[in-house]
């Protein structure tokens, strides 16, 4: 199971860590409990968005014995490619984006991702997307982070303990009844 909020929080924590700025990164597209939009944070900030989760190839299915229990455990595992978008706003947005993009390859950060079962596959270049607002330019920058992960699922396959086969064979006016029970 891939948990979007868990991965979003991990990326937010990594951004806060590499920029040494607590609460710098927020989750994108939030609404308050009453459905209204909150005001933007004061000062510079980053917003992390979970863009897509794509399966790569076919899932691998494994069936394992459960000791004396005739039922089998089915484990399904599949490669997933997850794209996260990180937007930076206001003062030093481009510098902050470039810094975070570079610092993602630190060993400590890769270890942190690895402990969460994620691998850094690639990053896009930093794009400058500064916007002209009513009261002047607002500096903005964005880049994508592509992560790899293993999505998993498990199920219990019930064993077929008995099979009853019934049939009839007819030849030259005779009929033979077949009744086989497999245990």
């Amino acid at each position, binding site marked *: 199971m891939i948990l979007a909020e868990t991965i979003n*929080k991990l990326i937010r924590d990594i951004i806060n860590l590499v920029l040494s700025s607590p609460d710098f990164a*927020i989750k994108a597209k*939030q609404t308050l409990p009453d459905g209204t*939009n*909150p005001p933007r944070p004061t000062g510079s900030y980053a917003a992390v968005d979970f863009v897509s989760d794509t399966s790569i190839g076919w899932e691998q299915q494994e069936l394992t014995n459960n000791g004396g229990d005739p039922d089998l455990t089915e484990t399904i595992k599949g490669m997933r490619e997850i794209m996260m978008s990180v937007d930076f706003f206001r003062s030093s947005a481009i510098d902050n984006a470039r810094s975070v993009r570079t610092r993602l390859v630190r060993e400590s950060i890769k270890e942190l991702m690895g402990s969460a079962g994620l691998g850094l596959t690639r990053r896009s270049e930093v794009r400058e997307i500064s916007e002209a607002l009513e009261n002047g330019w607002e500096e903005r920058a964005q880049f994508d982070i592509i992560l790899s992960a293993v999505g998993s699922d498990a199920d219990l396959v019930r064993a077929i303990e008995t099979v009853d086969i019934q049939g009839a064979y007819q030849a030259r006016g005779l009929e033979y009844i077949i009744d086989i029970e497999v245990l």
Partner: protein
Amino acid sequence: MPINVSEALDTDTAEIVTVTRTNGVTLVDGLFVSGPTSTFKTLASVQQPTVQQLQLLPEGSRDQNPRLFICKKPMRTNNDKDGTVADKIRYKGIDYLIISLGDWSTYGHSHAFGVRVE
């Protein structure tokens, strides 16, 4: 001393509406958490915005049943510089979220444009 034109707002020209105010938001682990809310009643002259006033609102808001509330008390809208959260005005059983404000506090009133909250 400017004339306080809010004296024109009385029960003959205005109605009593209920305002719900959220007192700020805080960020916890990058997630917004609403502050405490309070409610109060105020006199408001509730009007349909004129065509010119509608054109000043964001395009997407123009078909959200907008109303102009001319209130005796100052209203709030989302403002990231002050960290304020938009007020909600309950009028005839419908909630309106304040999306635009005109500050006429010198003359004792505020102009607040609200759109219907679904």
